[in-house]
């Protein structure tokens, strides 16, 4: 059993490495190279997903191995958490690789060689798989991190003829190396642990050192992973710049999955690297600090996202905001774990929310970047001031982007809803037992209204309203089926995530059952898991006998559907006739480019009010 997991992992990684060597040889045949790259990713993804399923279904997990590579020994560990992240990376990598085939044909990229692109892409994926499977902070971590960082650095600077892009990529590289140094330093400074010490050993040794050193080491690890995840203020330093200049499918990978490796690292730090002997109040302190940082991250990130005029910068800032929700949930879970049973059930809800939002965000944000990529492909711009009115021209992309935008805004029955419900609910329900978290919950809710504003603006200014017809390019049309297909797949996944959250509960149960560590001991018990009741209609949290919070998307969507049928009937009831007419601008104006509302005008008063949050756009 264990042997299969190990072999599967190795085969997948070797396949990706082989693809990195072979595919660049065909780089002059762009479509062929893209297809080969996709097939390699698909094969590797199937293997990784197989491994993930085996881990989650079987009894062999958590599986630990030592990998010998030359003279180096690195510990690997695959448990339920790794499996979920592996499956997520596999899905996004495959779908994006398929999208790349069409996208890299873009006019703008015609004179760029794809050799480095197809070398870096599989290495990047392999690096991320590595990060979520290695079990140390030194040897294995360094190899995986450098694969991921260097490969993504070259992918970001793909358009190397533009100086800004190169500068942003350099900044990204520098900061990621700093993050690496921080984590590595944390790993090496633990007394009694050298290169290749497993997390388990690190946790044991952290138990005997004094509080000051332990705090320093944990803080270093949190800073390193936080940098990757986009934690405030570190995320603002690199994330929007890097995500907005990379080719769109790469942005989808960066925002969808790469920053999730930071979340993974934070989870490991807070729940696996904390020794059992650590005093409860110290752990709670960590939870409180993490949740606070999460709240600041989500508020500031989203407030900055509202202001953006560049579609990809908008998505990037919003990614910081959404990661903030996840960090806050992790912090809540850490805090509640130390408390009495009532709060522990809420820790379960918070952690469920964090995991759920990680998966949801990966899909809908990936989808949004791919849709923006399609818009950029066909119109040549990602400037919201120049876009508008694409719904009629690219209807399929518009509908898909609509699903993703609604999901990120947390509209009931779509995928962001249940995860945000879980996170906000977990923050609000402790009441007096953890008062500060109630305030955090209120701020999270305010922020979700701002997320909504961000995506109303993005969607409105790109797909509805007017403007693109006065843009430079005038042969705007829907993108090819090859570029629509991956988006359709992701949109379907996104809808399933939204409508059937009980799948997540089942998955979460398995994740806890197949992981070791303090989380599982407290939360993995059947009594605890039963407080998060699942039915086909949705998820219910029970404390004691009564259900205290419930998210039932299927009921909600059924209710909305019935109500909409009634509204439809009402609209028809009067027998009114339909007619089309031009837009009415008070009779003395025509609709033209000088006479429209731009993205930089929208929410003007609110943007001024929020000026202190930073991330302002000049002239907007």
């Amino acid at each position: 059993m264990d042997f299969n997991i190990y072999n599967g992992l190795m085969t997948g990684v070797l396949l990706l490495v082989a693809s990195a060597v072979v595919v660049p040889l065909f780089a002059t045949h762009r479509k062929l190279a893209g297809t080969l790259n996709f097939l390699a990713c698909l094969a590797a993804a199937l293997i990784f997903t197989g491994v993930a399923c085996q881990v989650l279904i079987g009894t062999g997990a958590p599986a630990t191995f030592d990998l010998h590579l030359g003279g180096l020994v690195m510990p690997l560990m695959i448990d339920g958490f790794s499996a979920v992240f592996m499956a997520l990376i596999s899905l996004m990598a495959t779908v994006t690789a398929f999208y790349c085939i069409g996208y890299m044909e873009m006019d703008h990229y015609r004179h760029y060689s794809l050799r480095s692109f197809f070398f870096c892409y599989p290495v990047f994926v392999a690096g991320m798989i590595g990060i979520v499977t290695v079990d140390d902070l030194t040897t294995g971590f360094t190899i995986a991190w450098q694969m991921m960082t260097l490969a993504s650095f070259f992918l970001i600077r793909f358009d190397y003829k533009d100086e800004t892009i190169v500068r942003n990529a350099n900044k990204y590289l520098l900061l990621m190396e700093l993050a690496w140094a921080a984590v590595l330093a944390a790993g090496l400074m633990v007394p009694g642990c050298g290169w290749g010490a497993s997390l388990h050993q690190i946790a044991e040794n952290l138990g005997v050192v004094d509080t000051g050193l332990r705090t320093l080491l944990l803080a270093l690890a949190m800073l390193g992973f936080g940098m990757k995840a986009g934690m405030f203020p570190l995320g603002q330093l690199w994330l929007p710049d890097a995500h907005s200049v990379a080719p769109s499918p790469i942005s989808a990978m960066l925002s969808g999955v790469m920053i999730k490796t930071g979340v993974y690292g934070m989870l490991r730090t807070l729940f696996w690297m904390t020794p059992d002997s650590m005093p409860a109040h110290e752990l709670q302190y960590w939870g409180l600090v993490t949740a606070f940082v999460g709240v600041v991250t989500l508020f500031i990130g989203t407030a900055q996202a509202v202001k953006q005029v560049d579609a990809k910068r908008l998505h990037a800032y919003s990614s910081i905001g959404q990661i903030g929700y996840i960090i806050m949930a992790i912090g809540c879970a850490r805090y509640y774990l130390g408390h009495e049973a009532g709060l522990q059930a809420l820790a379960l809800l918070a952690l469920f929310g964090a995991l759920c939002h990680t998966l949801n965000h990966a899909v809908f944000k990936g989808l949004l970047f791919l849709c923006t990529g399609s818009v950029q492909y066909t119109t040549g711009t990602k400037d919201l001031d120049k876009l508008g009115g694409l719904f009629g021209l690219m209807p399929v992309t518009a509908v898909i982007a609509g699903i993703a935008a609604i999901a990120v805004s947390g509209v009931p029955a779509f995928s962001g809803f249940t995860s945000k419900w879980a996170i906000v609910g977990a923050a609000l329900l402790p009441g007096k037992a953890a008062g500060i978290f109630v305030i955090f919950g209120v701020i999270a809710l305010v922020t979700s209204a701002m997320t909504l504003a961000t995506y109303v603006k993005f969607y409105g200014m790109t797909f509805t309203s007017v403007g693109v017809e006065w843009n430079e390019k005038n042969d705007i049309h829907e993108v090819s089926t090859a570029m629509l297909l991956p988006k359709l797949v992701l949109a379907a996944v996104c809808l399933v995530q939204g409508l059937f959250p009980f799948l997540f509960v089942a998955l979460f149960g398995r994740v806890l059952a197949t992981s070791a560590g303090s989380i599982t001991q407290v939360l993995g018990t059947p009594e605890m898991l039963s407080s998060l009741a699942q039915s086909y209609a949705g998820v219910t949290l029970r404390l004691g006998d009564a259900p205290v919070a419930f998210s039932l998307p299927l009921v909600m969507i059924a209710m909305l559907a019935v109500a909409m049928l009634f509204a439809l009937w009402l609209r028809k009831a009067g027998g009114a006739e339909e007619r089309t007419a031009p837009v009415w601008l008070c009779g003395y104006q025509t609709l033209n480019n000088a006479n429209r509302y731009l993205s930089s005008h929208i929410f003007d008063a609110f943007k001024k009010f929020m000026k202190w949050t930073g991330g302002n756009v000049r002239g907007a």
Partner: protein
Amino acid sequence: MNPTPNLFVGIAQVVANLVLFLALAPLFDGIVRRVMARVQSRKGPPLAQSFYDVLKLLGKENIDSTGILPFRLAPLVAFASMLCVIAILPVAGHATALTPYADTISLVYLLTLGGVAVLLGAFASKNIYALIGASREMTTMIMVEPILFMILLLGVLKTGSLDLTAVIYGTPSAEFGWPGIVMIVVSLFALQAFVARQPFDMAEAEQELLGGPFIEYSGPNYALFKYYMMLKQMFYAYLPIAMFVPLLKSGYFVLDLLLQVVLTALVFLLIGLLSATHPRYRIDQAIRYFATLFVIALAAIGAAVIF
């Protein structure tokens, strides 16, 4: 207890809620129109005028200036979302068949969905006035929705549950203490913003934006939006009554309900008076006003958490 009759009662309650709101909302709107007229020394329309307006609009020409789906979808979604809110609302302390399927967070997000639909329609309509209105509407929503939520949150904190019946009726009013009093004041000061009336009707602003988000809508589509606005208005006027005025507990549901309806009518009287006597705020002034309310409400929540 046998669950079948309960289910039957619950379903009857859903229908009763819808009928109550659909029938009364236009009349309440009529109260506001009449009060405003009287303050301005006019006679004012009959109380049922808003009802006639909707009926007439339903038969008039439906003009589409855009030809895209979001424009036609928006009024349906707005109206439907509000119906859902009403269907889950435990009116006069009685949970409907649908109340156990949506908690407070769901309620807030359903209300947001209605706002989203208005914005979607506005953005789809290509009209600069609609877009300016949408921008203001969204800004108001960001600032005001949290205040509504914090009012409900008081109930959440007292009962430790997000279930709507528990949140709205689970706490005797006296137990809210002074955070409750602060919240009553806050909800009074936010009332005009909740119902989008002067001085906070920046989004529609008939005199400058000609109806803002709704400028391109006509006929049945506009009727749906109008009905949506009236239902929303009634919901927001009803909520503080349900939350802070204790139920009569007379044992007769109808009597309890009647008292709540009469009190809601009084709230509408207040709305009318305030609308008639206040000039419109600019959006930047309104933001500062909401921000102050937000901070006060947050302080009350903080106090409720600590003490």
